[in-house]
């Protein structure tokens, strides 16, 4: 029996309307579907204006969906019972400056309906965990950006939620702090918590996420494990060759005949060719072709792309398709970053 997803999004749509008689529309989400399984760390990627923050706000009930379905912890998104079990760290959050670390946790803990005594018994340990153990009595006004982020994380964890939704949790945090937050995320995962992460720092996501979803201009471009994404976007295998020019040309002609895609890399000490496939039979066939043509293979390497490279590659190639879809859409529907901003969408 499969487990109920922690987050389930089916054909989710959100359209912001603005202007006189609300005639201007901005489609922030255009039918997004994915699941987040309990206990996994799930990353949400996308360029600015992709609809990431809108998606998070729909999950929390801050923004009402225009269509589709969104369930969180088996409850409709925004349900108060669900919010009781969610910890949220918003991007650029503003904890009132008159609060101290301790009183901020008291305030937000009470908003989560926690008794004051319970908050007081937990807050010291929690502040220690996020590296603010000595700052509990200092006012938030004296906190650095990184400290504020860590305090935000602490308030999100305070009521021991099942699901943590963290929007740019490492924003403004120094490398040491980031490592600390990473450790915290793994600690949460170990305790069976689900973490829904939105971040621009792809290296960070790559280090912690089990699966990621990529949003672009309101459309879901990819969802799956990181490895799948990086492999799918891999540039192929590089062959360093030792041979005379005639044999090489003959071998390359055979590759063309076999419909194996390749491209040379210029300015190398020896002839170098990239075969644009990571698939094993193709690599085996390529090795056979080179050897049959008396071309010696002095080096063979397969490059694993980083998440960032894979993301950029995916976003770049998909943008052309998306633009084509946009052009086919009816008049009046616009989708630009500047218009999204004026429409009030924070996607």
């Amino acid at each position, binding site marked *: 029996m499969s487990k109920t997803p922690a987050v389930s999004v089916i054909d989710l749509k959100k359209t*912001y309307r603005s202007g006189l008689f609300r005639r201007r529309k901005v489609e922030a989400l255009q039918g997004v579907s994915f699941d987040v399984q309990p206990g996994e760390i799930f990353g949400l990627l996308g360029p600015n204006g992709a609809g990431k923050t809108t998606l998070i*706000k729909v999950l*929390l*009930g*801050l*923004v*009402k969906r225009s269509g589709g379905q969104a369930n969180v912890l088996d409850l409709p998104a925004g349900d*108060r*019972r669900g*919010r*009781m079990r*969610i910890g*949220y760290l*918003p*991007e*650029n*959050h*503003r*904890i*009132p*400056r*008159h*609060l101290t670390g301790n*009183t901020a946790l*008291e*305030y*937000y803990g*009470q*908003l*989560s*309906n*926690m*008794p004051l005594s319970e908050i007081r018994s937990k807050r010291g340990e929690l502040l220690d965990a996020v590296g603010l153990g000595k700052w509990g009595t200092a*006012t938030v006004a004296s906190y650095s950006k990184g400290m504020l982020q860590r305090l*935000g994380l602490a*308030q999100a964890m305070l009521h021991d939620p099942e699901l943590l*939704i963290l929007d740019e949790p490492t924003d403004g945090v120094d490398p040491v702090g980031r490592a600390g937050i990473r450790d915290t995320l793994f600690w949460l995962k170990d305790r069976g918590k689900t973490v829904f992460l939105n971040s621009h720092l792809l290296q960070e996501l790559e280090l912690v996420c089990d699966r990621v979803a990529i949003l672009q201009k309101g459309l879901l471009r990819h969802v799956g494990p990181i490895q799948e994404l990086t492999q799918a976007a891999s540039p192929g295998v590089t062959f360093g060759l030792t041979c005379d020019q005639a044999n090489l040309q003959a071998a390359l002609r055979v590759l063309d005949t076999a419909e194996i895609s390749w491209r040379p890399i210029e300015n190398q000490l020896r002839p170098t060719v990239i075969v644009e496939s990571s698939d094993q039979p193709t690599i085996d066939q390529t090795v056979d072709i080179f050897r049959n043509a008396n071309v010696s293979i002095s080096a063979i390497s397969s490059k694993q792309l980083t998440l960032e490279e894979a993301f950029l590659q995916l976003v770049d190639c998909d943008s052309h398709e998306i633009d084509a879809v946009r052009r086919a859409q009816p008049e009046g529907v616009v989708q630009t970053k500047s218009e999204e901003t004026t429409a*009030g969408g*924070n996607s």
Partner: protein
Amino acid sequence: MRPYLAVIRDSFREAFATRVLWIMLILIVVLLGLLAPLSFERALAVSLQFSDFKNPQAFIKELRDNRNSSGNPAGYVWSRLSDDFKHEVKSVKPDTDRRRRMSVVGRARNEINRLFNEPDFYDKEVWSDTRLSSEANELLDRGLTSLSKEEARRFNRLAFEAAFPSHVEASGRNAIQFVYLRYPLGDELPIQETQLHQIGEQVLSFLVSRLVGNIGVFIALLVTASIVPQMLDSGAIDLLLSKPVSRPLLFLSKFFGGCTFILLNATFLIAGLWAIVGWRFGIWSEGLLWTIPVFVFVFAIYYSVSTLAAVIWRNAVVSIVVSILFWAICFAVGLAKSSLDNWFLDSRRTANIIPAGDTLIRLTQTGSGYEWDDENQEWRELFEQRRRGGPPTAGRQAAWLGAYYDATNDRLVGIRSGGGSRWFRRSSKLSIASQDNDWKPQESIETPGGVRELLPTRNGDILVAGTDGLYRLEGEATGPADAFKLFGMSLPGLGKTAEFVRIDDESFEWKRPFAAAIDSSTGRVLISSGDTIAILKDVDSEFVVESSSIRKSGQERVVGFAGDRFLTASQDGFVRIFDASSSELVDTQRPFGNNEPRSVITSPDGRWAAVLFHHRKVWLFDGKTSAPIAASLNGQGDISAVAFQADSSFLAADRFGRIIRYSPEESFAIKATMEPQPDFLETLYTRFIDPVHTIFPKPGEMENVVTWLMTKQQTIGPDDTDELSASRQVIDIQEPLWSNLAFLAIMLTVTSVLITRRDF
């Protein structure tokens, strides 16, 4: 509730942290610290006040007339006045303007007060024919040289009063001297400590409603304007709404957090004021403490507008601007209504209904007269009263006092009120309008000072009663008008063929509060004077006391005969029914709570009586059964005048000129309605302005609630509160309270809905 209490608690934490609260508390402490040294000391009444003059012009004339005879007090006082002042008095001519004449009166007061400081003011020979009061004699017996400085001044004052009894009121012994850090502030005031309480409450009412109610609310709005916009800031609101809280309750918690913050400040200020006033003046006013919730309520009304603007625009400055605009709109709506009321429409309301033989006359508040034209179904104007500036109703006496129809001489008799304030009242004159002269009023002689009632008699005699006694007009009322004038003002009794002659035996003590009525069938006169109720009867053309009793309440303000009963009504709303022969109390009613009565009207046959109250409701009484009548009158709450016709039909005037005739014999069934077609202004008022005003919030009118809480006054009227017959503005607490509550509820609901539906 835990999350919402946390939000309210956070409002306080924020207030303390941002120092705003501290600054406000420090300012309040400074204000209270400045007020704390203000106090009073008991003193002897010495200084002459404007209100002590009965007739200042006549007094000055007497001094001037006796300038050459230093053997009497008038000549003696004249001789001791400064040359400058004497010169100024001599320079005043009949055509001198009023302001100059009043300035002379003011100087006269200062000159006399200066004389009181002179140790040799009293001259035994000059005062040889003057009868000094017992208090003065007591001081004299002790020896003038042995008196303290204050006692000597007091003696001079008593001697002065004794010398000019017809011009100057006798003063009470005690007075109050206000001091600040032991330094006296101005002259001592001839008031008792009980009056000090009353005045103190009025001053506090003014301070609280104006300073705290207006300036305080504005400051409170400035201080709290940022609370909701800050809550709605991106990064703050998403953090709050991600918690398991209800959006409307979150908003309401923030709203009440702001209100609680203001409650704290208001409590500190007003409770501080209460403690200081109690400590320094002995005025422990419970009403002052009740103004705290009123103030917070007024703030909440404006704040609800501010928060709605904050939810729409998320900007503190815009919230403040919108709140100010809202205040301006409320002010404009209130002003439109009160302007139409006071300047145009109330002046059309009926102040007196006078059934005059076979015709019906109505007099308006401003003194215009109209006769009902049955054929054209309209009021025909008989005469118009020129308006003397200022709104004609609120706080002013009616232009006519006690007008009635004299059937014997087929004429309308009334007193044209001189108007003016208590201290500068212009003289009132008898006015006669006969049918032969198409009811055009002819001015007759001035009435004696202090006249309050005109008493209609069967034989056509004109009787007036007031705090100076009971008078009958002797001679022809409408003789040649060649009155002697000083400073352009007529002097009573001079140059007329008629005069008012005192007809009571002078044994009765005439004082305020005063009311009188006559039983036209027996000619007996009912007097309520101070705390005494007496019946006077005519014995050989002199009215003597037949019976008298002392009322403990001492507040009977309007009276009337009804058959073998007489009725009195007191300021606190009680109507008491007495047996006319024994003056024993038979029954007590309080038909409309503590609403103040305005007049008691009785039918010519003495059977029916109607008590008209200031909130324009009428209570009816059947003298035959000695029981109240449960009649359903049209326009209850808007009835401005009532009367009985010769056949005892009952007339009640409402709206702007409607009079309905009822038959008391037939359970007050309607017999006729006299109502002209409303004009544009009346239609505009009744169809638009009044309904809009009714449903519109009235935060400004909450000042009236403060006045009511502080003074327990039901109405606001002339400064002379003894005169209940004058038109008074009723303090309506209910309507502003309910309309403001409804508005507050609507605003909070709309804001809650908006915040629920909004994407953040």
